[in-house]
């Protein structure tokens, strides 16, 4: 199983490991809850070097991305970032991505580890269609660290010469970390302020340990999952997959239909004209029992007709009650409506709420 350049460091710090997207990744160092809390109240450090970094560069790069993604990359300002989706011809989601614009004809696309091959293959095929040849998968050359939490800026500032106050949310800058050339991105997947820092994998150990010395708490993927869930962020393979379209997933706003041809446009245009039969919703419960992925949803405690399914769920560490996301028949998906979840044979009520469950105070 592939490992990141920090695998030995994680082992040295006492991490337990899990298979994530085909990678042997740290699930926790000591305590999921302590790591979760470190991100909410201090600063957590995640090794996300398993994620894919694809550079799109050269004349026609912006037009190529406009054709390949559902969003309009050519509208992103230089130095800014945008969340986007790459869909197939049927409007099914191949992956969700962050697109960073480095220069007029230079972009960085960060994709999920488990979808690296699918995304690279789709981009390469689309590049051939439009005669663009600037797609380059550099995932193996880079380490990617996320530093997230209210103290993330202070901690990262300790090892960089870039004035981080010049980088607003969803922007990217070039600078150094611990003397190493890096891209500094003000993005994340936790619901907190923070950065994702991309640099040569050869320097991974040095930068990782420098951030720990500055006070960042190493955090595993278990806490990353509960953090992103509280923040209402989707995880590919749970909320998103090839059988889900952007309108069901609540990402209609990401699809820019008012433009010329792009892959999936015809299907997405038709989908946009109809109310989806199911919608991704946020659900909260009472007590301590979490509704987890794949548990079925029913209209009420007596009904035996399944009307939805949980895609992610946990007892929220920050809020203290169960939170979940799931797909629900549209007619039952109104905020405030109560449905019933089957938790291993026990029916419990859950109420539909607006996402996110947790929003940081600015």
């Amino acid at each position, binding site marked *: 199983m592939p490992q990141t350049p920090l695998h030995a460091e994680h082992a040295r710090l006492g991490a337990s490991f899990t298979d994530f997207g085909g990678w042997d990744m740290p699930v926790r160092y000591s305590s*999921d*809850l302590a790591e*979760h809390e470190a991100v909410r109240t201090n600063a957590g450090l995640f090794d996300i070097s398993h994620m894919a970094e694809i550079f799109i560069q050269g004349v026609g790069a912006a037009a190529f991305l406009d054709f390949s993604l559902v969003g309009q990359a050519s509208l992103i300002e230089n130095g800014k970032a945008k969340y986007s989706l790459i869909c197939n011809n049927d409007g099914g989601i191949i992956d969700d991505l962050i697109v960073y614009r480095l220069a007029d004809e230079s972009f960085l696309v960060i994709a999920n580890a488990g979808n690296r091959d699918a995304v690279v293959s789709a981009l390469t095929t689309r590049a051939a269609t439009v005669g663009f040849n600037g797609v380059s998968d550099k995932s193996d050359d880079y380490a990617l660290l996320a530093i997230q939490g209210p103290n993330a800026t202070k901690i990262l500032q300790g090892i960089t010469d870039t004035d981080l106050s010049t980088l607003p949310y969803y922007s990217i800058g070039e600078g150094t970390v611990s003397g190493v050339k890096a891209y500094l991105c003000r993005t994340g997947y936790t619901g907190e302020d923070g950065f994702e820092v991309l640099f040569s994998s050869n320097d991974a150990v040095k930068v990782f340990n420098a951030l720990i010395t500055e006070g960042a708490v190493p955090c595993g993927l*278990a806490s990353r999952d509960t953090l992103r869930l509280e923040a209402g962020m989707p995880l590919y393979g749970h909320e998103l997959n090839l059988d889900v379209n952007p309108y069901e997933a609540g990402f209609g706003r990401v699809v820019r239909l008012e433009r010329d041809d792009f892959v999936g446009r015809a299907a997405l245009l038709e989908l946009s004209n109809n109310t989806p039969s199911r919608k991704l919703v946020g659900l909260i419960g009472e007590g301590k*029992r979490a509704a987890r992925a794949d548990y079925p949803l029913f209209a009420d405690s007596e009904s035996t007709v399944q009307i939805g399914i949980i895609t992610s769920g946990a007892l929220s560490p920050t809020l203290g009650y169960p939170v979940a996301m799931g797909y629900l028949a549209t007619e039952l998906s109104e905020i405030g409506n109560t449905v019933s979840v089957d938790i291993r044979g026990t029916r419990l009520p859950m109420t539909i709420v607006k996402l996110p469950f947790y929003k940081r105070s600015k």
Partner: protein
Amino acid sequence: MSNPTNRQYTAEHEWVLVEGDVATIGITAYAAEKLGDVVFVDLPKVGTSTTYMKICGEIESTKSVGELYAPLDGEVVEINDVVVSAPETVNTDPFGAGWLIKVKFTTLPELMSAEQYDALTGEG
């Protein structure tokens, strides 16, 4: 962490400490660590019958759900209120304050020794 030698074990990672005709039952440190932070335990009510290797409770962490298998036939005579109100005790002291239930029994099935359990979990 080494497994105490004054008790017996199951392949499902329960420990059993016998005193007279009452067995105190918990999950091992190995199981607690695999689960992660325990946030909820669902234990059988006092008076419930237990059946050897049948599920009699659940231990939930943020990440997953663990099942509690009854290591013997008997009747639940006490449950640990401490772990019900402070589930993290299962992580902090799995072999002590984090015990789960006490079961009154008549015959004891064949269980694993600490040595055998060490071998199963790659410890010792």
